[in-house]
């Protein structure tokens, strides 16, 4: 089971999907495109735990974190 984690005012919201299930996989891909389309950054982690930004949907990623665009404060 893979997870998409979206940072929001609740802390985060998590969506699980089964990469072997075409329906939930499609939903996850749509979510990825929708979020990155509105400026969210998507990040995964390497095996050693370092973050990596990803621009395309990776159905094999166990965990993808989305956070809103960074702006000057």
């Amino acid at each position, binding site marked *: 089971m893979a997870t998409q984690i979206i940072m929001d005012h609740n*802390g985060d919201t998590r969506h699980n999907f089964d990469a072997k299930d075409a329906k939930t996989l499609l939903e996850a891909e749509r979510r990825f495109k929708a979020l990155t389309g509105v400026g969210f950054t998507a990040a995964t982690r390497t095996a050693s735990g*370092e973050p990596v930004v990803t621009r395309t949907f990776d159905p094999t990623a166990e965990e993808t974190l989305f956070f809103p665009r960074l702006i000057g404060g």
Partner: protein
Amino acid sequence: MALLHAAISQLRRLLAACSHLARAFRDWYQRPSKSELRGLKLLREWLSQEQLTQYDAHRYFEVIGCHTGKRYRICHGTAANVFELDDAGLPREGWCFVPNDHLVAVDVMLAQKIGLETDERGALATANNFTPR
């Protein structure tokens, strides 16, 4: 005289009870919200062991910028909480950049960490800088 001692003793007990109540109220008022607890769990999952140790000890952690190799300290907070460090580990310059949505402090810190570790120049290009005090 005995009456005075009894009164002082009563007064001390009353003050101790008030102090206890005040501490309990402060703990209740400052308790982390569900959002903060959720954010903290996420932050802890994404920090390296070294960063986690720093955060637990000091409420800040340090990251290395992916482009320049510079060291930054990300302090607990939602604004003006990122400091570029000099060779002695002292704040040289402050950087202010945040996610463009209202997030709890620990989520802001995680976004700043990922920004600096994966796209340092991009993160700083959006940031406002300031002189640390």
